[in-house]
């Protein structure tokens, strides 16, 4: 295991100064997620416009460096994407955290991919995987807007 891989510069920086940590005005989709084990919680807000493009995305919540950084990077990358592109990115990220060695999607710039790959350090820390994925699962839920609260206990 390697703490340096887990707590890379980018993670620490995003963790300390998370982007989009606010509440989108006039959001039209949202969802809450929580991790009962550790008490982390996140609320994701989304504004999809008529062309089904993510006009704005933001989050509120508190959590560890990993979860804050993950939400921060996520909101950064998703903003401006269409909902289908967003879904592809989400799948790609969750697949990478789960099993794939790399990101496969061609939507993201190399630069953005590098940012996301920084979160791959959690793979070696099974109990922390949930920290990295909570905001992503919550985003899925917001996009489906099924009113269900996401929990990552499982």
């Amino acid at each position, binding site marked *: 295991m390697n703490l340096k891989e887990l707590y890379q510069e980018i993670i620490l920086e995003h963790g300390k100064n998370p982007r989009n940590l606010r509440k989108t005005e006039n959001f039209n989709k949202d969802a809450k997620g*929580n991790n*009962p*084990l550790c008490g982390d919680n996140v609320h994701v807000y989304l504004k999809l416009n008529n062309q089904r493009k993510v006009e704005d995305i933001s989050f509120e919540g508190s959590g560890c460096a990993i979860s804050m950084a993950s939400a921060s990077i996520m909101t950064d990358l998703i903003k401006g994407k269409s909902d289908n592109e967003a879904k592809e990115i989400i799948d790609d990220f969750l697949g990478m955290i789960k099993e794939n060695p790399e990101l496969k999607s061609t939507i993201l710039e190399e630069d953005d991919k590098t940012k996301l790959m920084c979160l791959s350090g959690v793979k070696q820390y099974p109990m922390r995987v949930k920290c990295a994925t909570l905001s992503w699962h919550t985003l899925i839920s917001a996009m489906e807007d099924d009113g269900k*609260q996401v929990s990552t*206990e*499982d």
Partner: protein
Amino acid sequence: MNIDNIKKEFPIFDEKIQNNDLVYLDSANSSQKPKVVIDRINEFYTKEFSNVGRSIHYLAVAATNLYENTRSSVQKYINAKDKNEIVFTKGATEALNLVANTLGQKYLNEGDEILLTELEHHSNYVPWHYLRKSKNIKINFAEINEDGEIPIENIEKKITPKTKVIAINHLSNVTGAILPIKEITEIAHAKDIIVVVDGCQGAPHLKLDVQDLDCDFYAISCHKMYGPTGLGILYGKKKWLEELPPYQGGGGMIKEVKKDRITYGDLPNKYEAGTMATAQVIAFDKSIKFLESIGIENIIKHEKELIEYGQEILKKNNSVKLIGNPKNKGGVISFTIEGVHPHDIATILDEDGVAIRAGHHCCQILHDKLEIPASARASVGVYNTKSDFDQLNESINKCKKIFDLK
């Protein structure tokens, strides 16, 4: 693993019991434990101990994974659809209390009826009796026939439009009768009746496929299944476990706790309040593996042969009267001896190292019906052999001699 010399996997048989070899015919009460299971407990406490699902340090993560691993093994063993349909409890008794209590909270109403059978163990009657008291629910009993079975007609006869739950034994711990769960479930579901199975004797001795049986709940007692004491399992269909309220409340089963409100966690946490039987759950994985390594078909075959041999030998012994004669019978033989009380039988057999049970075996309803205060019971596990029944018969003869019977 070959069942013919499986006995050597159980260290207790190396012991002398009052200078005798142990002839253990009390497995329906609790089974002995194979070395792999005992060793796993030992190893876990010695090298790996931590509480699960709470902390995130190395030992805690490892223990949590092992714990959840057993859940998956159980899921596979009983062929449940979903891992979260497996809830760990302190025993089958708690599992049945959980079902009765939560159905009582949300699903059952005054005047509803619950159908049990005359073969039920107290653990599958008292929890329902509580609802009789608290909710004015009626309990009916499907009757046994003269062979000590519950024919399906006897179930059908007692179903009324008010029947909401049928709670039944899979395998009677007195007559050994195996109940036709699948058929009962079919009839029940056609009338929207929930089927709760007391699988204490079924789980260790029969092939288990809960999707095939299609029952709504199935209760398992791990200590009868070559596992540790203090552990049971409740299988419940996901739709029920999701719909019903939680049972015990405490740490680990909550989502959010505020001064004025509480929300509960998702499955399986919702039903696992407080620190669970961590070491026991982790070791139970070895019990499952042990059973798998023998193969349930081999176990069924072995135990069938034993019981046929035992019945044959005891039938030849005049004075011995067998209780029930079910066509479909598991590894339990109960009997009486005219003129000798079962407790006297048990004491005299014990002197030869033959361990059986005497009493009503937590089935007073059945004993009342049979008009006997008690019976003697010999029950088998994977480690028994035909010679155990030879010894049983010999000791019964000693008993007859003491009581001056022919």
